[in-house]
């Protein structure tokens, strides 16, 4: 059965044709590969392809999504099955513009520069978060209304946690 895979910005068709021993015959957009593939550590694969040795590390980020590291490159890969397709079609409209501010990593709130009800201009900093002795400023991209401030100064926060709700 062929699947779609989203590889960074592009979408490819992929299919596992046959397996024999630890060699998998696979097809991507019509290109056929005989991949000698072994999981040598948890999440780390050793690949031999026409003799060339690759070490590929997979970090599942969320359901059906991977961050894939090769020696010099990193790729974001998503397996698109029927369920994902359906969800994607529904989610599209909402996702376009995020309605909250969050950070990509855990840290500590240093300063909150807005309060509920504030109207802020695009490019203005709304919150400053420190992680590992470095402070980062988080700004709004467009003019927005602050609907709710969910944290206070001094709070420890997780990555991706909503901090300030916007409208």
């Amino acid at each position, binding site marked *: 059965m062929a*699947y779609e*895979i989203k*590889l960074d910005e592009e979408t*490819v068709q*992929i299919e*596992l044709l046959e*397996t*024999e*021993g*630890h*060699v*998998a015959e*696979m097809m*991507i957009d019509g*290109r056929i*590969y*005989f*991949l*000698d*593939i*072994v*999981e*040598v*550590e948890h*999440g*780390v*694969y050793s*690949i031999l*392809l*026409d003799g060339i040795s*690759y*070490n*590929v*590390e*997979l*970090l599942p980020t969320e359901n*059906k999504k*991977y961050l*894939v*590291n*090769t*020696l*010099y*490159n990193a*790729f974001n*890969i998503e*397996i698109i099955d029927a369920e994902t397709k359906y969800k994607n079609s529904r989610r599209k409209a909402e996702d376009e513009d995020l309605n909250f501010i969050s950070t*990509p*990593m*855990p*840290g*500590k709130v240093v300063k909150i520069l807005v309060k509920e009800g504030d109207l802020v201009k695009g490019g203005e900093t709304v919150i400053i978060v420190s*992680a*590992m*002795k*470095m402070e*980062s400023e988080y700004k709004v991209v467009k003019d927005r209304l602050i609907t709710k401030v969910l944290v206070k100064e001094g709070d*420890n926060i997780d990555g991706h946690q909503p901090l300030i709700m916007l409208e």
Partner: protein
Amino acid sequence: MIKKILVANRGEIAIRIMRSCREMGIESVAVYSEADRTSMHVRFADEAYCIGPAPSNESYLVIDNIIAAAKKSGADAIHPGYGFLSENAKFSERCEKEGLIFIGPSPYAINTMGDKITARIKMQSANVPVVPGTIKPISDLKEAVDTIHQIGLPVMIKASAGGGGKGMRLVKNEEDIISSVSAAKSEAKAAFGNDAVYIEKYINSPHHIEFQIVADKHGNCVHLFERECSVQRRHQKVVEETPSPIMTEEVRREMGEHAVAAAKAVNYSGAGTIEFIVDDNLNYFFLEMNTRLQVEHPITERVVGVDLVKIQIDIANGKELPFKQEDLKQIGHAIEVRIYAEDPDNNFMPSPGTIRHITEPLGLGVRHDGYVYAGYEIPIYYDPMISKLIVWAPTRREAIDRMRRALHAYKITGIKTSIPFLNRIMEVPAFIEGKYNTHFIQDHEELLKPHTHASRRLKDVAAMTAFFDYLSKIETVKKNTFCKRPASNWKNTGRRNNLNRS
């Protein structure tokens, strides 16, 4: 003689110190914050005591708690490492008062060198060159012009009340002196209501070169040559090497003598570092003294063949230095890079998280001082440096080759690290040729950007691997056929190769 040392630090430096303790038969005591219960230094030490909550100012910086842990453990000495309390004269004083040996210099030396102006005056009186400039603000135009002539061009004029670049003027040419001083003064007046200015020699393309010194309590002091630390990002050292590629034998001897004079001027004992700012013509000026071990001390250890922590402990024990200046030699070339938990491709954003796998680079000429392990979660409270990679080779060129090889083999997954960025530094021609100064990183911004190109084939391999893993997990592929235990593939390989060749 010291029998038990409390290490008032964490991370790689705590472990590095404990290693030397172990070799000397000295017991080591770790202290840790609540965020560091699982940290390697706690596991590595003979004993460990909790000294407070995660934030440094409630744990690693609380003198009382550290002293209490020392008392409880029966330690007779404290090694402060670098950072935290290492340059805190009060801590050194307190240790003395509590009958604990502080492995570092006297409070007097820390205080004197810790204050920029006091240090500057002290150095001048010891005939150590400092950056020429005025110490007191000047309001008089004529006095300013005279001073500039005295210092020699180029100079930087700074508003005495200033900040933010206002009232600052760089003067390069004789004919601009008067107009620049006037402009700076009126600008300062307008901005701060005060037209007084400072004048300082401007160093055009500065190098940061420092000298390691060690001094015992019997008046013996030697230097262990220089470290070139000009590869910096936001005043943070990134790569260090020794010998410096721009150094000459003559200047090295001279600077070394000045470094020793600087240390002697404050009756220094212990290990310390004299930092100099150096221009392209090897004119050098005292910048500051670090009265502690430096992060980059291992490159000196490797090239000179000494263990600086052992020397620190021996000095604290009252021993005489085991060598004289003429016994010391630089052999070969060493380079250190610092590996940070940060994302070099995303504005060096810190990247804490849990280490998933770690493959450390090993083999000939490679030293790796780290502290993280698979499964360890890097806390968000402390410095993001996770390890240091030090290589040695007979020549600088071979050392760079070795560093590339080591970085190539060094894998830490689960978090982002600066390894790819360091790799790119090793490929910049100016670095390879040894022609760089503190502007290196901004001057080569383009070359240091990530190489994003990936071949079609590599993209396909990445996609297939993820897909294969996905299928294995949903069990449409019988996992056992594939994983961990390679089946007989001698024939399959043959078949595959035949197929590919047809």
